[in-house]
């Protein structure tokens, strides 16, 4: 028993473990970041999975046809934003129920991405290059972790830092949070609620598209229909898990990625734990941690933006 724990400990604190966890968590982090901003403005977009897979399909198509990862990423971003625009038109323009519109977007995106991706079966590209700083990247341990990642990983961190700064240190961010907490008051104060939400939703879509593009551009450089495999849903769950706070989102994304990878590694150790139990671990862990966090805050602890999911139509 102790030996097993020792083995697991050696695993978890190894450089390659950390590197893999970072890679696995990056799409969750990027998509979650975008969704966090959207939800902070009061819009619940459950279409993240659809936007991500669109980003994956268009991102791969773009990169394959142009030969450039950057162009592919840009295509992914545009695809995600365009998908979210449909959602915005419905929920912000026509006051449609957000849950329904989000689900419709997921189905639509899954189908459309399949049509787009059909032509790329078996195609492959060179994956996004990793940073290679002359001396720094070769430092043992922190070298590869800090200085040897691909652009998406650095972008994900920059994104979270930027979002944190935006939300908590800028006036616009304050306004966005106000809109999410009480859209009626924000409107009364003269803020353009719908326009702010539109920008937040588009940003969320762009991030989802980028996160989706990460999968076939850096993680596994080929495209297979459905390759997001539910990561969009995990991203939505992680935003809730993070109590809508960017810092906690990073923790949640890496925790989920770590537990997911951990259960695979532990299996290889041959300890004989049932794999279905291991596979459930990340999901169980997420629920348990969320309950614990929420319990600490007490039952009034729903930290959701109070106007999340509610329809806003300015009174005239």
């Amino acid at each position: 028993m102790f030996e097993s724990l020792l083995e697991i400990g050696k695993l978890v604190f190894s450089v390659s473990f950390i590197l893999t966890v970072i890679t696995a968590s990056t799409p969750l982090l990027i998509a979650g970041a975008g969704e966090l901003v959207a939800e902070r403005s009061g819009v619940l977009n459950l279409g993240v999975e659809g936007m991500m897979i669109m980003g994956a399909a268009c991102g791969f198509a773009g990169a394959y046809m142009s030969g450039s990862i950057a162009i592919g990423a840009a295509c992914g971003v545009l695809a995600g934003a365009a998908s979210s625009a449909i959602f915005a038109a419905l929920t912000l323009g026509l006051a449609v129920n957000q849950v329904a519109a989000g689900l419709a977007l997921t189905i639509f995106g899954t189908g459309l991405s399949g049509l787009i991706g059909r032509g790329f079966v078996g195609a492959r590209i060179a994956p996004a290059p990793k940073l290679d700083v002359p001396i720094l990247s070769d430092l043992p341990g922190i070298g590869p972790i800090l200085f040897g990642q691909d652009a998406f990983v650095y972008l994900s961190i920059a994104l979270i830092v930027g979002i944190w700064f935006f939300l908590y240190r800028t006036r616009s961010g304050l306004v966005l949070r106000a809109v999410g907490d009480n859209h009626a008051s924000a409107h009364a104060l003269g803020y353009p609620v719908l326009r702010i939400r539109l920008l937040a939703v588009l940003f969320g879509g762009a991030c989802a598209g980028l996160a989706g593009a990460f999968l076939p551009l850096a993680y596994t450089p080929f495209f297979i229909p459905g390759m997001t495999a539910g990561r969009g849903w995990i991203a939505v769950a992680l935003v809730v898990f993070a109590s809508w706070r960017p810092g906690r989102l990073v923790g949640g994304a890496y925790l989920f990625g770590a537990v997911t990878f951990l259960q695979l590694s532990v299996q290889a150790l041959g300890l004989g734990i049932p794999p279905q139990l291991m596979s459930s671990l990340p999901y169980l862990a997420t629920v348990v941690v969320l309950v614990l966090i929420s319990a600490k805050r007490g039952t009034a602890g729903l930290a959701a933006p109070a106007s999340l999911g509610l329809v806003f139509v300015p009174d005239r």
Partner: protein
Amino acid sequence: MQLVLEKRPENSALAAVASPLVAIALSLITMAVMFAALGKNPITSLGVYFLDPLTDSYSLGELVVKATPLVMIGIGLSFCYIANIWNIGAEGQFLIGAVAGSWLAVRTNGTGVGPWVFPAMLVLGAVGGALYALIPALCRVRFGASEILTSLMLVYIANFFMDYLVRGPWRDPHGLNFPTTADFDPVATVPILIPGSRVHAGALIALLVVGLGAVLLGRTIMGFEVRLLGAAPKAARFSGFDPDKLVLLTFAISGALAGLAGIIEVAGPVGHLQPDFSPGYGFTAIIVAFLGRLNPVGILIAGLFLALTFIGGENAEIAIKVPLDLTKVFQGVLLFYVLACDSLIIYRIRLLRTRQSRELAHV
């Protein structure tokens, strides 16, 4: 010049009637365009999608078979969604209901047990689904944990649990070690209603659920509370209703119905428990619930209509060699239009001249 949305003084009756028709018309036009873009004849393609399934009895029967679980789960979900309680985990409740009912079937398999087994399985399925749904409900009520996350995570867990059971303790001893339970005894199977088709008693149960849903929502205090909680949460609390109790109740109802649908599906069209027997009914039912405007009769129609799109999609794959992904695109588009048109029942669009809109913006 600006387009603005504004609430109508009262819902437009004209729009209420026209909305589904306009939505369908718009969807058909969009579909026709997509077919043309793929190089297929739009008119015949649409016919293959929508008319062919309606013109032969086999397809009509299959429509009912496919719609049955969707309607049942959809009605259950409507209870939650009307009250703005976001149960995203119907798929998990569906699976656990199937597992709970299957337990009895597996236990009594081959023992010559009497016909009480079948109703008992149904009860177990409903109870199992309800209990599983109470987990996210309790997490919300006791700990304030968002039900969106908990109910969704529980879907994955339910899946793995069922997978473990079917590969391990419940595996058919004569199935050459393949992951499936033994075929259920005939006495533990859903009776077929129309011989020669797959239409089974589940369809009757679904109709019953529609009626029950209508009565519960429209004529009971509980239904009133649910609707009030959704429409005016502050007023609801002010009137002394206990929102927590409602959370638990709506989750339990929706879990019970999903679980019931689960065991019926497994004991009916499938005939034994196996992994992956569900094509995602729990998620599709969410769409059915919204398409049906969270109204029991509407859900019945929406369930049948969505089933039509699935069957039509398969027809299209065969007859005109159109990929399945197109069906998904179409379902998404249809839902977009229906949601948009429905919105126009409550709201209307007005074109404002710039000076007016500037004035109004400062109100």
